[in-house]
């Protein structure tokens, strides 16, 4: 199986716990013989890099340096994520099975790649906007929510880390039960459950 992971943080760029989580995830997937590409952001350390752990990382940079908010920044960065994902796709002779998007940042790229190249994606959720900006009705916050909604609508599967988050998704986004996989990072069978989630993501929905 060949998978691209989209994440806005990955070591050495660490802004929160997501960087550590994705690093561990990618390393474990490599051990399970998954061909893993991580597409991430780093404005100073850019390009392709393959580590001793077998993780292939593509770091993309800002083509537009000046921004007025996190959305204009992320939405222009998405084009670079698409460029790099397409480069992987074409160099691998179209053999790319799945994209795993972590949080909302690269949802638009995943949606376009799904429509254009028929590569499905799973949406892994670490945190959601209603928790980060509690009760905010500000346009910026609602725009970020709309990117999260888009991801949930278009993903083949949604992977969350706890039963609580599953309930929160249902509460805030009306997400359907059967779309959500709860996989605890502490579980012994964690990586196998992630792979099971990926496999469900590969299944073409019945309807």
């Amino acid at each position, binding site marked *: 199986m060949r998978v691209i992971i989209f994440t806005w943080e990955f070591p050495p760029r660490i802004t929160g716990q997501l960087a550590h989580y994705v690093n561990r995830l990618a390393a474990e997937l490599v051990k399970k013989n998954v061909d893993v590409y991580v597409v991430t952001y780093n404005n100073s350390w850019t390009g392709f890099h393959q580590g001793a752990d077998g993780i292939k990382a593509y770091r993309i940079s800002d*083509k*537009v*340096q*000046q*921004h*007025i*908010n996190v*959305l*204009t920044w992320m*939405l*222009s960065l*998405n*084009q670079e994520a*698409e*460029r790099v*994902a*397409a*480069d992987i796709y*074409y160099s691998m002779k179209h053999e790319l099975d799945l994209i795993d998007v972590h949080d909302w940042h690269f949802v*638009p*790229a995943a*949606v*376009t*790649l799904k*429509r*254009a*190249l*028929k590569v499905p994606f799973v949406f892994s959720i670490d945190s959601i906007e209603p928790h980060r900006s509690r009760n905010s009705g*500000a*346009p*910026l916050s*609602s*725009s970020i929510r*709309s*990117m999260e909604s*888009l991801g949930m609508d278009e993903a083949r599967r949604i992977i969350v880390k706890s039963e609580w988050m599953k309930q929160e998704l249902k509460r805030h986004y009306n997400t359907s039960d059967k779309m959500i996989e709860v996989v605890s990072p502490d579980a012994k069978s964690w990586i196998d459950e992630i792979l099971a989630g990926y496999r469900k993501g590969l299944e073409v929905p019945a309807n």
Partner: protein
Amino acid sequence: MLSWEFPPRTVGGIAAHLFNLSRELVKLGVDTHIVTCDFPGAPESEVVNGAHILRVDSYKTPSPDFATWDSLMNVNMQKETAALISSLSGQVDIIHAHDWLVANAALGLKHVFRIPMAATIHSTEVGRRNGLHTDYERMIHQTENWLAHESWRVVCCSQYMSGQVRWAYGLPEDRVKIIPNGVDVNVYEEFDRAEFRKRFALPEEKIVLFVGRLVYEKGVQTLISAVPKILSRVNAKFVVVGDGGMRDSLMRQVANMRLAHRIVFTGFLDEDSLRKLYQVADVCVVPSLYEPFGITALEAMAAKTPLVASNTGGLSEIVEHDNTGTKVFPGSADSVAWGVTRVLLDPGYANWIKLNAYQKALKVYDWAKIAKQTKEFYEQILREYDRGSWKPT
């Protein structure tokens, strides 16, 4: 083609540009699809003059500001266009973007499908703002820069714009292609001129026409300053069509000069009245200080209205002095007064420049010819694309 506006959604000049260009491209056998923003009452998809129009959800939830809205709109535009290109199963040869407003969508689609992308840059942020003063303006400038560099080649409408694009983005000359804007001469039909004229002027008054946004760079203040000098020699009425931030200050200027009875501010005018107004005007003045192209000059030429225009930007390429119009110094009221009086007092001269201008509109600015140049431009890109290694195998 990607554009944020297409009729009936008309914000600036790109809508009309695409409407005319797509019609003529279709006649040349180019299968043309336009993806644009939705508009109340306009169907989601339709065929207009043979071109397929797809209107996407333009993101109507509140967004913080215009540029952020545009980024969010581009998410939808890219998503829907990706589905459209997939449904046409690889039959799309070129993605043609119009201005930075669709840059995100066009850039991503180029890479995802590996289809060559070309952009028309109708105007630049640094030109519109006369510099870059805020993060907002710098962001747009850098987006234009990115779009320009990712384009196989950039289309500009004049030598002047080509120079500006090369200067602003450091683009090599062979990456810029000049294809002018066009004008449709057939929309100016015969009608009862005397009756229509009454709405604006007395029969013995000449009509001096200005059309444009009421902003500093269009130079309407120069024309108003020239009015007393013109009136000292000719009996005339000045008709100012358009609206903009300077309207109040201009109207104060007119009142202070005791000229309110001589200058009519019409505000925005519908297309039909505007066309008629061109035809009844005795002279059309384009006193711009900055002008990437000068579409109003073309409209005057097509309507057979004698033209007085500033020697600046794209305008100076459209108008040849004493041949297709009278050129004046930008920002000089004396020069504008001289030019206008000359045209109004010498009917033979006025006739000479207006007929030459009309011929030029037919020969150079005919949309059919512009579409032909555009098609050849596409074909050249495809030849280069076929030779390269970027094309997927």
